[in-house]
């Protein structure tokens, strides 16, 4: 009788014993599979937390003298992990004129007495890919009263302050000219390249400008927003459209360093003269507890795997020891020790194949249940918000997150099946070692 046949017969005839070992194997493999799937779902959940906290950086390329062009921006947007270019902007000062070359009036009554020469009809000029993303609109309380914001693709357009519009009788659809003069750029014989722009929007400010000692050309009232194309033409008509800084939003704030490092490999920009400022305070604040949560999951999975392996080995050792009597009988019948060992291993593998196969659907069902419960509770918790305005933000932010699924992945199966089989072979062999060293007489006489 071959060891395979003996193994098969033992397994089928000792149904009770086989069932027990089957359940042990099923439960241990289900435990590990379920925990592995929950563990990878937790990693996704941690990533989701990071993504929901968000991160971005400001690239300040003022020092590169116009190297941050549209094509560079496009290359940055292509970097893996960059969500979008939120805005790109430049700022400077410009002189305002009518299309006929007559200087326009700016607000001066709140200004510092001694005006700098050349700035008598000038104000701050803000160039933006998306004007609504300009800091003045985002955090300084600027509000668009009429018309529309500047957006990507606009050319020869401007937004002006309500006060500036009234002072000069300008309205939406009117045009005026942005210009520079020699005193402003400190070049005596400067030949300017004026740009005619159409007013597409009128704004006002809602919070007081904090300084009382401004020079007139820094006043909110004298600020004009324009598109990057007009801006570039005004300052150097020969050059590509460029920006002095860009706001880049990334998916995962933990990858900011890697993304910036990748950005700095793009040719055509003197990265040494650029400045990068991270905006990841929410992530930085949450970093420590978030990392320890991630670590706790790793610790758990390591403990669970080690303990499972140890348990399996111990149980199999118990199993082999219980077969002491049988082993002695086989040996006295002249069966080879290796043959007996192979029989024992085959028996366990036979049961293990079935147990492992069943553990996949069982752990999948558990994982599915876990996932369903989580999703249910998540939708419920979003509705318990304090203010409705924030709830909207939460809803929209949540949509950009990675999909949280608790599922048993092929890799998990591979780990469990591979390790399981290895543990079975090793532990049966090791447990059998002392028995195999004994003579049949010793074994049979040592029986209880």
């Amino acid at each position, binding site marked *: 009788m071959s060891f395979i046949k003996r193994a098969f017969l033992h397994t089928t005839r000792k149904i*009770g014993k086989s069932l027990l070992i089957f359940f042990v194997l099923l439960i241990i493999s289900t435990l590990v599979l379920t925990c592995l799937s*929950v563990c990878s779902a937790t990693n996704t959940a941690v990533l989701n937390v990071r993504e929901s906290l968000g991160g971005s950086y400001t690239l300040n390329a003022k020092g590169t003298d116009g190297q941050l062009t549209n094509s560079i921006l496009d290359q940055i947007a292509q970097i893996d992990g960059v969500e979008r270019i939120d805005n790109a902007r430049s700022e400077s000062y410009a002189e305002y004129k009518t299309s006929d070359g007559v200087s326009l009036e700016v607000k001066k009554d709140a200004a510092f007495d001694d005006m700098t020469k050349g700035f008598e009809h000038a104000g701050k000029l803000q160039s933006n890919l998306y004007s609504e993303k300009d800091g003045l609109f985002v955090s300084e309380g600027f509000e668009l009263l009429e018309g529309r914001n500047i957006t990507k693709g606009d050319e020869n357009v401007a937004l002006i302050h309500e006060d500036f519009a009234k002072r000069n009788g300008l309205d939406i659809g009117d045009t005026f000219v942005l210009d520079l003069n020699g005193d402003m750029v400190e070049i005596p014989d400067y030949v300017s390249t004026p740009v005619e722009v159409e007013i597409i929007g009128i704004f006002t400010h809602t919070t007081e400008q904090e300084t009382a000692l401004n020079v007139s050309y820094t006043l909110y009232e004298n600020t004009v927003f324009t598109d990057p194309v007009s801006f570039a033409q005004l300052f150097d008509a020969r050059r590509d459209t460029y920006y002095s800084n860009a706001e880049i939003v990334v998916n995962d704030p933990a990858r900011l360093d890697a993304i910036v490092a990748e950005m700095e490999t793009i040719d055509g920009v003197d990265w040494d003269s650029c400045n990068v400022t991270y905006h990841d305070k*929410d992530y930085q604040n949450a970093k420590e507890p978030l990392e320890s949560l991630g670590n706790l999951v790793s610790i758990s999975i390591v*403990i*669970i795997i080690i303990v499972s392996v140890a348990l399996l080995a111990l149980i199999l050792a118990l199993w082999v020891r219980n077969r002491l009597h049988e082993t002695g009988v086989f040996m006295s019948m002249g069966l080879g020790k290796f043959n007996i060992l192979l029989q024992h291993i085959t028996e366990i593998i036979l049961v293990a194949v079935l147990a492992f196969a069943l553990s996949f659907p069982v752990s999948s069902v558990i994982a599915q249940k876990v996932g369903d419960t989580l999703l249910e509770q998540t939708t419920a918790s979003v509705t318990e918000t*304090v203010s409705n305005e*924030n709830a909207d933000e939460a809803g929209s932010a949540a949509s950009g997150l990675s999909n949280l699924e608790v599922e048993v992945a092929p890799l998990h199966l591979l780990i469990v099946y591979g390790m399981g089989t290895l543990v079975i072979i090793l532990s049966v062999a090791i447990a059998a070692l002392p028995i195999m060293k004994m003579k049949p007489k010793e074994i049979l006489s040592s029986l*209880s």
Partner: protein
Amino acid sequence: MNTPKRSLLYVIRKRSRTGLLFVILLVVSTLVLSGLSIMDAAGDSSAELRESTGTSFTMERNLSTATRSNSGNNFVYQQEYIADEMIEKISDIDGIKGYNAKIGGYLELQNLDGDRFETIVYNKWNEEDLKYDIGTFGCFNTAYDSFFTSNQFELSEGRHIATDDKQVILISDDLAEKYNFKVGDKLKLTLSEEQVQFEKRYGVSDISANSVDVEIIGIYKILEEQSDKETLGQYELYENYVFTDMATFKEVFSTWAVAAKENEQGYESADFFLTDPAQLGSIMSEVSNISSINWNNFTLTANDEVFQQSASSMSNVEKLITTMIIVVVVIAAVIITLILSMWVRSRMRETGILMSTGIPKYKIVAQYVLETVLIAIFAFALSYFTSNAIAGNLGHIIDSTITAGDVHIAISNFILVFCTGIAVILASIGISSIPVMQMNPREILSKMS
């Protein structure tokens, strides 16, 4: 021979079997104990994570119910200010971990001999009159000031100003570097004679010079630079900001009647920070029920955007970890049951022999239970130490910033595992003995392999 003695003899004589069961029980209880302590640690980390969102609410003067009057080009609002007593009352509420309110003004820094320190400057017009002006803020708790909570500034040396500090300041590292100021240095926060003269030129009459000795207790670093420094007055530069305690701020301005009166009337707004953002709603409603404050004059705004954005992902992390541990605990109990039934089954022959010698069935079961419990007591006791070591050391291996103490075994968890473990042993030996006990000795002995 009585049952306890038989149990004891079995345990001692069958050393290797005892050893096996002991190790199995030890391993399983270590798993469960480590799991429970990981769950506790996950709960702590989650609470910390929620707290890290810096959730707060802001109390502000309600300008929409204020009386508005025109003064030149600007509107002047008449509205009650937030008083010290109000802030105190609100900050006493449970769950509020800190608060801040601030008032600002322009002062100068001098050394103890009265020499003035020039400020850092980037603009071109550097007016003689303004050369020494620093933007000064009186604060309750600088740790909760918006410059620090929004990560524009970060304390790089020393400590923050707290409510009971007197005569202390925080300065920027740029200013500290320029004048070689160190934490512990003493300076004067001054309303100087020149400033007084400057104000008098603009028609201010009831004003005289004043100064308060202050100690530098902290130095901050600017993380977010201002974008157009050359267009800012030096008193507007972050580099020249000085934070001081509220009492000192008021004290310096006490010789300037108008400013002192403004400072005494109270604050425009105050921020209150929470330990647990989940309590924001209930705490805000508790605040708005404080009857001594006329809520017609003030508004409360929640600042919980960060928490709202990430709350669901955060709770998912915690729930997943909890679920995993529950799975582990349940499966551990099942495994123990299975192993013990294997154990009882493997002793069928012995059971048969004992029965045939006339020992009552309940005594045989009692013997098995006693043996296992005897082993379990030692295994469970040892598991307290092993799980402590394992959980702590693994944490240390995975991330060296976690000290072994972060994951530790709570006594309550240990007692729970101990009692539940014993209960599982009793139940599983009892149940798996039923089929054997229903048989006669002859059936058992003839059934043997």
